[in-house]
């Protein structure tokens, strides 16, 4: 079985019509599918004439397709390269495109309180864009959940059977000594780095997206090293759901207020602070933390859904029972938000 998978992975795929290794394969269902196809092919042959006609049809289509594809690809690339050759020189200042940027660079620090002009741009001047993007992430997580979650309607075995037969350790990664030692060494620094760039988004490179992704990767490595049953105690389904909804709701409320008051920027009544301190930048820091929490939950949710088909175990509320590294970071992030 495994051997066959690796052969498939190697690219030496077998054609469906090829019946040479039919006898040794253990896949019953795949066998059935193949015989089905062969029978259909035979009946098609009877209906439409010889198989050669079908082959010729397919061949003709393939030929037409490749010619059209080659021509369209060459045409597209040629046109694009032609346009590129008439663009302004690479590395030179182009006055038409820097009008807005000049405003951001000159007045950005005074108006937003953020030293990093990119953070000030995406979370203050153009925060509505970022709001849409966090919702894109949330929607993507929901879509993946619909497609891959193992609930009653969407799985092969029954849900109870799945837990009774396999035990809770079946879908958890095998506890590898190397992974555990590496995780023990790496995890604190990864999570600390994630929190650092999450909180320093207005002062330097980083911010919500990168910090959230690093935090999510830390959770993924934690899962790889110590298994899902450990992570479920820290990042349960209820906690992930709550954090995502609270963060998105907070962001939507804050930015909805801006648009309600005429989209002239939010009088947040939060002092801007001295640019460069951690507690500066007015609303940018809370929005950064909200975005970061959403991104971290989404990344961990993707991993969890792809790995075992559910987020946070059976949905039981078991958070905060055993405070590990991840629990500390989560709680800290939540308090700050």
């Amino acid at each position, binding site marked *: 079985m495994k051997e066959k998978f690796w052969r498939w992975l190697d690219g030496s795929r077998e054609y469906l019509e090829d019946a040479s290794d039919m006898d040794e394969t253990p896949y019953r269902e795949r066998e059935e*599918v193949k015989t089905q196809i062969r029978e259909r092919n035979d009946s098609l042959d009877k209906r439409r004439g010889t198989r050669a006609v079908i082959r010729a049809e397919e061949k003709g289509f393939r030929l037409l397709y490749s010619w059209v594809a080659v021509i369209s690809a060459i045409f597209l690339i040629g046109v*694009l390269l032609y346009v590129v*050759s008439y*663009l302004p020189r690479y590395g030179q200042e182009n006055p038409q495109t820097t009008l807005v*940027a000049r405003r951001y660079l000159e007045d950005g620090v005074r108006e937003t309180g953020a030293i990093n*002009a*990119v953070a000030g741009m995406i979370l203050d001047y153009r925060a509505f864009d970022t709001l849409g993007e966090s919702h*894109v992430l949330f929607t993507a997580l929901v879509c993946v959940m619909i497609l891959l979650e193992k609930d009653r309607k969407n799985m092969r075995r029954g849900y109870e059977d799945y837990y009774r037969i396999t035990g809770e350790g079946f879908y958890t990664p095998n506890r590898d000594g190397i992974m555990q030692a590496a995780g023990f060494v790496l995890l604190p620094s990864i999570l600390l780095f994630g929190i650092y760039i999450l909180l320093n988004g207005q002062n330097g490179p980083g911010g919500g*997206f990168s910090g959230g992704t690093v935090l999510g990767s830390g959770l993924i490595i934690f899962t790889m090293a110590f298994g899902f049953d450990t992570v479920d105690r820290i990042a349960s389904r209820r906690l992930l759901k709550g954090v995502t909804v609270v963060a998105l709701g907070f962001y939507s409320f804050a930015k909805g207020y801006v648009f309600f008051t005429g989209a002239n920027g939010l009088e947040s009544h939060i002092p801007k602070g001295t640019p460069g301190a951690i507690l500066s930048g007015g609303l940018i820091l809370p929005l950064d933390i909200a975005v970061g929490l959403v991104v971290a939950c989404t990344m961990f949710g993707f991993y969890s859904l792809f790995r075992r088909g559910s987020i946070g175990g059976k949905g039981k509320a078991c958070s905060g029972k055993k405070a590990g590294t991840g629990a500390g970071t989560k709680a800290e992030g939540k308090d700050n938000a």
Partner: protein
Amino acid sequence: MIGNLLANYEEAVAIILFGIGFTMVLFQRNLIRKLIGMNIMDTGVFLFLASMGYIRGRKAPIILDPSLPAESYINPVPAGLVLTGIVVSVSVTAIMLSLCVRLYRRYHTLEIDDIYRLSKHQMEDR
């Protein structure tokens, strides 16, 4: 034109990457390779955007010294756009990959020709 392309080498490389991704999406028969091609197209577009904002000899837009003029920093607008795009591309990739898993669960193959043939047979079955 070749001279112009050599001067604009980074944009030209971005377009070539876009073309490689486009041909991958057109010609690869495997769905996962098609997805990698889509990701390469994404990065080509990001590279193009960011190279439009790059100005030679200037620094990243982190304004540590407010007395410096705006002429000493690169354009921050493309960086913000690309930052948004990177995170959107990973969510699109996740959705596509989960669709791939569902397709494999149904047809037990990821080759687009076989999936097409199987779906045609199943359509004729009904």
